[in-house]
């Protein structure tokens, strides 16, 4: 009955978030708590990531954050992080993709055969690989978006299909080696330029520009928030936050610059992170993706073309899976039938640890990266201290469960 729906009154709105004066006597605790509540999972994961890094840094006697290991960490996890970006978008749209590991292997195999057996120049092979990825994504997207088969089923079929395809293409053999240029995708570094210093110049330059951009962005955001009369952190805390960001970027830059410099794959990741982050937040396409995942019926009644959005999310996932396959093949310097096994599970775990919601409509690209790094650092750290892969799996499973469980608990508390 209509009347029964009125379960709350206008008065309760304000109770959940009373207007507080910035920096006023209302107490900093509640203000910070409110600031955190909106993104508790992401902030929580950032804090958790920092804690995990700190623990392993101590446990490994400082090996974890040595320049060599940092570079390793990036190169080892790059393909999972690339997949996690695409997976996050698919999950935001309210779907799932189980086929990305197989697809990465399939594309890697196809590129290997092209380069090694048919002497196709590597840039051409790379472009062809990305196109194959797009086509595979379009194939799955078609069944999911336009025919209406659940994504779980379509991509489960894809997982088998592309795994079988990989074995057919490679005829059960590993195909190697690749041209030098191709290997650089995964293991190369930016070139050294300018006068000789103790550090890698281009890396320093890049680090400083990232720092400048980050600070600029923060200041602009704060100014805009203030203009709308929104709560902002008190100036002292804001400066502390800026300081923390600056310190993190600088330390990271110096670490990289004191080794071989800036890995090319990190550049790829950085570009993807910024581009997809901006796309999801500030493009009509991105907004429509959140709307479809958050409430499909309402979004469609608002004129959002839901089928097209879902289709494009899978095409994009296909391209990123292909890219991840290239990076992995380049790192291995071979196309193998065993490539990419369990990648999809790592990517899905990264997205959920990083704040995705199982029902869709929630999550950020940065979150996927943080989630992926939590898993990556755990992997790397546990290997360094000699924990076997058996226990590693147990621990990672518990972390995934704890992260999502924490979020569910928090939502329930906020909802009541």
């Amino acid at each position, binding site marked *: *009955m*209509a*009347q*029964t*729906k*009125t*379960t*709350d*009154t*206008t008065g*309760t*709105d*304000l109770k*959940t*978030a*009373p*207007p507080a004066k910035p920096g006023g006597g209302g107490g900093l605790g509640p203000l910070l708590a409110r600031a955190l509540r*909106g993104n508790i999972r992401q902030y929580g994961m950032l804090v958790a990531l920092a804690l995990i890094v700190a623990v392993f840094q101590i446990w490994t006697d400082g090996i974890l954050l040595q320049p060599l290991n940092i570079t390793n960490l990036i190169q080892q996890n790059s393909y999972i992080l690339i997949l996690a970006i695409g997976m996050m978008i698919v999950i935001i749209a309210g779907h799932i993709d189980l086929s990305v590991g197989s697809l990465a292997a399939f594309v890697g195999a196809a590129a290997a055969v092209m380069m090694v057996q048919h002497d196709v120049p590597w840039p051409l092979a790379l472009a062809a690989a990305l196109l194959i990825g797009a086509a595979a994504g379009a194939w799955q997207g078609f069944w999911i978006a336009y025919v209406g088969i659940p994504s779980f089923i379509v991509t489960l079929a894809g997982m088998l299909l592309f795994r079988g395809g990989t074995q057919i293409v490679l005829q059960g053999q590993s195909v190697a080696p690749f041209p030098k240029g191709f290997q650089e995708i995964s293991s190369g570094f930016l070139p050294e330029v300018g006068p000789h210093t103790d550090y890698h110049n281009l890396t320093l330059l890049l680090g400083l520009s990232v720092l400048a951009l980050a600070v600029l962005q923060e200041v602009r955001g704060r100014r*805009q928030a203030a203009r*709308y*009369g*929104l709560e902002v952190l008190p100036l002292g805390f804001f400066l502390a936050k800026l300081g923390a960001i600056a310190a993190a970027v600088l330390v990271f830059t110096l670490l990289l610059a004191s080794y071989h410099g800036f890995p090319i794959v990190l550049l790829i990741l950085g570009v993807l992170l910024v581009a997809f982050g901006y796309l999801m*937040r*500030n*493009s*009509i*396409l*991105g*907004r*429509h993706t*959140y*709307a479809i995942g*958050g*409430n499909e*019926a*309402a*979004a*469609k*009644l*608002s*004129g*959002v*073309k839901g089928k097209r959005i879902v289709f494009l999310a899978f095409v994009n996932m296909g391209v990123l899976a292909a890219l991840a396959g290239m990076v992995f093949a380049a790192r291995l310097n071979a196309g193998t039938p065993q490539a990419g096994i369990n990648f999809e599970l790592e990517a899905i775990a990264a997205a959920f640890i990083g704040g995705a*919601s199982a029902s869709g*409509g*929630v999550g950020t690209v940065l979150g996927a990266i943080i989630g992926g790094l939590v898993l990556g650092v755990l992997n790397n750290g546990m290997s360094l201290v000699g924990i076997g892969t058996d226990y590693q799996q147990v621990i990672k499973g518990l972390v995934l469960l704890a992260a999502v469980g924490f979020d569910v608990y928090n939502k329930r508390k906020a909802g009541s």
Partner: protein
Amino acid sequence: MAGPVLEMRSISKSFPGVQALSEVNLSVAHGEVHAVCGENGAGKSTLMKVLSGVHPHGSYEGEILFQGAPCAFKDIRASEQRGIVIIHQELALVPYLSIAENIFLGNEHASRGIISWNKTLTHATSLLRRVGLDESPHTRVADIGVGKQQLVEIAKALAKDVKLLILDEPTSALNGEDSRKLLDLTLELKAQGISCILISHKLDEIAQVADSVTILRDGRTIETIAVDADGISEDRIIRGMVGRDLEHRYPERTSEAGDVVFAVEGWTVQHPIDHQRKVVDGVSLHVRRGEIVGIAGLMGAGRTELAMSVFGRSYGRHTGGRVLLNGTEVRTRTVPEAIGHGLAYVTEDRGRLGLNLTEGISRNISLSALGKVSRRGWVSEHEENRVAESFRTSMRIKAPSVFAQTGKLSGGNQQKVVLSKWIFSEPDVLILDEPTRGIDIGAKAEIYTVIAELAAQGKAVLIISSELPELLGMCDRIYTMAEGRLTGEVDRADATQESLMRLMTVSAATQNEQV
């Protein structure tokens, strides 16, 4: 007939902010068919939920006596054990199980957890004979029509040894013949000593089978009328059903209606699954510039279905009719097309169809017209927030900021967000479906003011509402619908609650006679 089989005394039930029932009395005699009437929201369903234990004992005030003994049902099972079975409008059958399996679902013929199929089938066959359904008990429920499914529901009730059968709008989804069969069955069951409560909007049905009628209005019992040999006075029922107080103040407005902006001609829509059923049947209507036009109708009249199918074919299967804007036919086959032609539809179900509850106010308002805050596909958040902020102020949306999650707002404020979204898309024609459902009086008055302003700006406004005073207070003209058809068109000056209700309760059979 002996004394009452059921007595509900002084039943009161409130939900936070709403008094759904106050001091309702209902007395059903042994072996009678007792009709319960009332407008949408009068409290009929709540009363039945109290009776069947959906709202458990302790969550309401008052007492229930069944066969002379007091009842304190804690759930549906408890009431069913005593022989009270409710059959909802939305049937509760499992489509891919057989008729026999459905009849005994939760009530299986079994020993130690193992089902005896012989007993099940024999019993099912005899029950099917009793309700006059000529189908094999092995048939899947999905393979029979709604009318027969209704009979399966009754067979299921009989299997539970029903003493009091509650039918909630049983014929709303049935065609004329199936309806007649069902009503005949209630008379047969009555002869077997089974009492029946019939909730219905159709006065001719009530006249046909009911022995007495209880009328509810705004959660109160208005009166109980015994149907005597002369039949029943429909006027008297209608008078009892309507007459809600004009509790709200409506904005003063002088109507300056211009040319016809929006028109629908011969619009016909089939049910999305049951293609035999016409949910909307040959409806033609029009709205002028600056005019507010109402559509009145009871549950199942097809008003929402009409609006949604016009708005981008969002409901059912369209089989005929056209939409005209300023005299020219336009295509509104998809929602983007409809929006492009200047249509806007504000849903009756804002939680499910109107808002993305996980997002903030700002992103909800901009969603249907993101292009207006974007350049080349890129959204300017600055501009978006500015727009949202201006709506938050002008619509008086009570929220700490434009980033407040819409799921945490009250009904009235959510409705203002949905309205803002559609006003921002700058439509020429606004279809508002139950625009003030479930919101408090203060917010209602504010929304009425907004609607009046929109009309004053020259927009064509179509309001679908179940609250007759609202339609009488706001509209220049009112259409009435019943069972998918247009049954009348009344100017505000000539309309009364009684005259509208009379048109809203015309059944298809009567309509045919009039033609």
